């Protein structure tokens, strides 16, 4: 049923939407009562642990588990032999969870045990004998593309890859329009530069954890921290040869995901162990395992060429992106290629993306997958051109900005978007005119993310005391339960405190797509509004019956059913609680629900501005000031919108200054811990200022645009521009760690 969007946006005077009420899960989280993935237990529970390959690339000749099985206290051991055939689209997921003929990266799962305690499980792993034939490995993206590179597969490339390339090149993408050569010929200056970024990890503080129970009756229960418990259910059921309805998955509170928990790693293994042992199996990843064997993002190598006229108009833009996605097809290079030039209205644009495999863990999404790296390269070249022509970087971006109706470099024409609004807000902000001292520099950059909708189900039940139970199916990764409650309360016209929002398990609702793509506030919000309107219709119908008038003669206003006009009759308004109290007598419990494929998600654009200081002796960079300007469409709960802006910006700070995966000559990960994989800490940072811009999305009843991902797209670029200005030399390799900055300064002298 189509929702009447326009009426809401134009005349809506929101009562609760836009406020900052406390979140429903708040008390549990500040008291330690909230239950995360590793916080659940079951009677008779075993502990599961995984044996992982110490080699970056090796054929697995044989696995002997007999000694492990014989160890007292060991109840089950699984290997590749315990998993059957799966459909082609699940093949890679399965192989990543449990190696088949080869170990493809340092940390690749090779076997797993379930035992009565963690220490027995650890001992058992040591007793598993694996016969490896070590093979040559490759971990760098450019090296993997070389003709003589060690090949992971014989035949993984598809029809898009031209003949004659390294076997590790598995996909080629191309986007764009016009003719870039014409554009370059018309430019007053054409700048071309190459860039590299290292692999990073989403860095969620909670390691992967689950509790799996799969009984002899074929019925299973899985407690897991995940961004998408319905997707986990479907994938695990398929991998274990089960029907979907026989597996019930409950999503625990999740301690961070950012895309890294949109897939499975240990869950199918835990279920397989549980089935074999006929006992519940709890499985967690250690921090080292999280780094070695979950899903970091791609390392990249990029070339960007942009032509500009002296008035600041970009005439043509070209980018070639090379991303490695670990040992499997699927780096996010296509999204990088699609988003690279999205903020700019260009007559001639072309992006080419290469997906390359290497002996590294299978990449997983990291908040706007593929976009931050491309933005870094593109915005750096634009910055150089601005300096060359002595033009203001914000003015140049305003001059070239995509607006409503612009042809996006990835294909469609944009609808209503807010990029210009963020640029104007940035230009007029005091940060932009604040003075800078020696060795200090300011950088700006733009970014965007597509956002999308997806399958979403919501159930809204009105209790007999007039309170409302709202069940959504999208795990709460950012505070969305509060926003859902606000939207339900807004529609129903009742206080926010009367609504209790929970995330239901997979048996209680229809399918919900994963909490990703910045889709939750948009999609679950839309479904919540629809479910509320559904319930309102029923409430009005009950009132009409009690008054003996037509349903059409009843309206819902301020949380009450009222006669539509004088002619309908003189009746006192009935509140939601009034009607609920007699629901049993008027037809039974009152509820509303919605099962939708939410469409109409609106893109969110952002501009970031950052000041940094470089110590020319040590190369250390200090972030002095940071302001995020981003379009939220309509901020349902401003504190959570600000939180997304700040969180993404700080992940971007880490990515650009410190974080990187360091592989040794032996192909093993050298820094698999928080000590040497250095994410930002409180003392590294200033306050992160935020400006919420609101250009409503016509596709949502309240104008909502997803915001979670866009915030990580501009930081790499803005910080690189800032540091390059502060250091007096262009940095082209992320992270800009002190040794790299020092070397760049030295080389420039």
């Amino acid at each position, binding site marked *: 049923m189509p929702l009447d969007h326009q009426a809401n946006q134009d005349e809506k005077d929101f009562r609760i939407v836009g406020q900052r009420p406390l979140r429903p899960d708040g008390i549990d989280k500040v008291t330690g009562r909230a239950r995360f993935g590793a916080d659940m237990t079951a009677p008779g529970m075993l502990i599961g642990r995984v044996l992982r390959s110490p080699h970056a690339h090796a054929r697995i000749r044989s696995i002997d588990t007999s000694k492990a099985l014989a160890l007292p206290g060991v109840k089950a051991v699984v290997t590749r032999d315990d998993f059957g055939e799966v459909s082609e689209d699940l093949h890679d997921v399965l192989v990543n969870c449990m190696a088949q003929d080869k170990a493809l990266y340092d940390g690749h799962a090779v076997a797993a045990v379930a035992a009565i305690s963690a220490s027995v499980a650890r001992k058992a792993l040591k007793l598993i004998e694996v016969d490896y034939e070590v093979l040559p490995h490759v971990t760098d993206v450019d090296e993997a593309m070389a003709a003589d590179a060690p090949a992971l597969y014989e035949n993984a490339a598809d029809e*898009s890859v031209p003949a004659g390339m390294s076997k590790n090149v598995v996909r080629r993408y*191309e986007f764009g329009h016009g003719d870039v050569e014409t554009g370059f010929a018309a430019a007053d200056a054409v700048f071309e530069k190459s860039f590299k970024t290292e692999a990073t990890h989403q860095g969620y503080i909670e390691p992967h954890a689950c509790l799996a129970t799969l009984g002899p009756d074929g019925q299973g229960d899985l407690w897991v921290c995940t961004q998408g418990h319905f997707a986990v259910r479907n994938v695990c059921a398929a991998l274990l040869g089960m029907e979907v309805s026989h597996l019930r998955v409950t999503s625990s509170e999740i301690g961070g995901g950012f895309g890294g928990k949109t897939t499975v790693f240990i869950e199918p293994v835990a279920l397989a162990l549980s089935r074999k042992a006929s006992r519940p199996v709890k499985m967690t990843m250690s921090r080292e395992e999280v780094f070695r064997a979950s899903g970091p993002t791609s390392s990249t190598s990029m070339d960007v060429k942009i032509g500009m006229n002296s008035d600041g108009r970009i005439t043509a833009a070209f980018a070639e992106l090379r991303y490695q996605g670990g040992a499997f097809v699927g780096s996010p290079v296509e*999204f990088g290629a699609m988003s690279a030039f999205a903020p700019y209205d260009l007559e001639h644009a072309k992006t080419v993306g290469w997906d390359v495999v290497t002996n590294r863990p299978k990449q*997983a999404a990291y908040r706007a997958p593929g976009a931050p790296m491309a933005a870094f390269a593109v915005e750096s070249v634009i910055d150089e051109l601005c300096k060359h022509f002595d033009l203001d970087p914000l003015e140049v971006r305003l001059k070239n900005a995509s607006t409503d109706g612009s042809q996006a470099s990835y294909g469609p024409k944009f609808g209503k978007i807010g990029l210009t609004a963020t640029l104007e807000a940035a230009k007029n902000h005091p940060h932009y005119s604040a003075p800078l001292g020696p060795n200090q520099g300011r950088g700006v950059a733009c970014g965007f*993310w*597509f*956002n999308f909708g997806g399958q979403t189900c919501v159930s809204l039940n009105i209790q007999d005391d007039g309170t409302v139970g709202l069940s959504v199916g999208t795990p709460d990764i950012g505070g969305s339960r509060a926003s859902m409650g606000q939207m339900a309360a807004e529609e129903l016209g009742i206080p926010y405190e009367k609504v209790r929002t929970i995330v239901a398990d997979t048996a209680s609702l229809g399918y919900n797509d994963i909490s990703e793509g910045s889709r939750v506030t948009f999609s679950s919000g839309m479904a919540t509004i629809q479910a509320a309107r559904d319930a309102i219709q029923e409430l009005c119908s009950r009132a009409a019956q009690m008054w003996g008038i037509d349903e059409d003669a009843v309206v819902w206003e301020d949380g009450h059913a009222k006669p539509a006009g004088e002619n309908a009759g003189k009746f006192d308004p009935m509140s939601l609680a009034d009607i609920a109290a007699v629901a049993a007598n008027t037809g039974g419990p009152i509820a509303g629900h919605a099962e939708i494929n939410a469409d109409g998600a609106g893109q969110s654009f952002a501009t970031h501005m950052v000041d940094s200081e470089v110590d020319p002796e040590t190369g250390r960079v200090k972030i002095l000031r940071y302001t995020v300007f981003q379009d939220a469409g309509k901020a349902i709960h401003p504190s959570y919108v600000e939180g997304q802006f700040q969180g993404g910006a700080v992940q971007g700070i880490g990515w650009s200054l410190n974080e990187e995966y360091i592989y040794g000559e032996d192909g093993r990960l050298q820094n698999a811990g928080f000590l040497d994989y250095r994410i930002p800490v409180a003392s590294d940072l200033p306050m992160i200022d935020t400006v919420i811009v609101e250009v409503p999305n016509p596709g949502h009843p309240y104008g909502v645009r997803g915001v979670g991902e866009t915030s990580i797209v501009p930081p790499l670029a803005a910080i690189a521009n800032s540091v390059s200005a502060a250091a007096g030399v262009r940095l082209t390799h992320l992270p800009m760690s002190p040794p790299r900055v020092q070397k760049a300064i030295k080389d420039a002298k």
Partner: protein
Amino acid sequence: MLITVKIWGSLKAAAGDQSEVQVEAKNIRQMLDRLGEAHPRLKPQLDRGVSVSVDGQIYRDAWFTPLKPENEIVLLPRLSGG
């Protein structure tokens, strides 16, 4: 109805080197079927999954989304996020 579909650069070769293709279709499902029939080399990508942008709105799975000749229809890789 004859509708016009824009396809992205790396698919052009599979569609007879055209960046715009016309097919008879009244919704997304029909469009995808007709595209695969008219240009069999597109089929592998279509089977792997695509998103469709209709006048700027992204659809990932909605088969019966109606299509009209005046719509701007763009084939995109299947979008996902993080």
